[in-house]
């Protein structure tokens, strides 16, 4: 299963409860189909860069999820049928680039090394004399 990002723009006039319901309607099929909802962001009411169906604002919902590929088409169909959806977009979430992964690993290593050196400093401080015995030949 691949990682997707789905952003949906709802009508601006929907109440809180209705939006919760809509979010539920997005996330529920994902988990039901054996997917996983990674993150749900509510950007709230935002001004649109241009009018959509004569609306100037929209309520944005952004969902990161792992879903089977077959669900994406179904999701798209449902959004198009849903009258309160102004716009929707699902994209493949960008893969972590090798460099980013490398950097993250490096940062982790550095953090580990730092804590290790700190620990080492603490031990050498505690016992300066015994440290001399451990020197290699």
């Amino acid at each position, binding site marked *: 299963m691949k990682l997707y990002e789905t952003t949906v*723009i709802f009508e601006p006039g929907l109440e809180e409860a209705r939006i919760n319901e809509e979010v539920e309607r997005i996330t529920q099929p994902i988990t039901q189909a054996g997917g996983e909802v990674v993150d749900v962001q509510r950007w709230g009411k935002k001004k649109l860069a*241009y009018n*959509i169906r004569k609306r100037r604002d929209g309520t*944005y919902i*952004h969902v990161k999820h792992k879903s089977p590929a077959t669900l994406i088409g179904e999701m798209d169909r449902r959004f198009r049928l849903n009258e309160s959806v102004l*716009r929707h*977009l699902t*994209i493949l979430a960008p893969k972590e*680039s090798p460099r*980013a992964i490398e950097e993250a690993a490096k940062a982790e290593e550095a953090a580990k090394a730092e804590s290790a050196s700190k620990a080492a400093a603490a031990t050498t401080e505690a016992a300066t004399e015994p440290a001399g015995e451990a020197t290699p030949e």
Partner: protein
Amino acid sequence: MARDGESRSFRRKFCKLCFDKVERIDYKDDRRLSRFITDRGKIVPRRISGTCARHQAQITEAVKRARILALLPFTSDQYR
């Protein structure tokens, strides 16, 4: 004395995104993307902005996605 055309101080263009060490441009980051569109909403070409090929390709994709989500305009309305 330098002639008119040459008197302008010449400064080499550089990729601002490489300078900022941007790994990936996000279509949700409309503030950053708005620097790469004209006031009419067009994508600024590389020869103007000096963006490198890799980043320009990312900008293009991101701007197009942002337009779909009405984060950026397809065109500016004021000239209608």
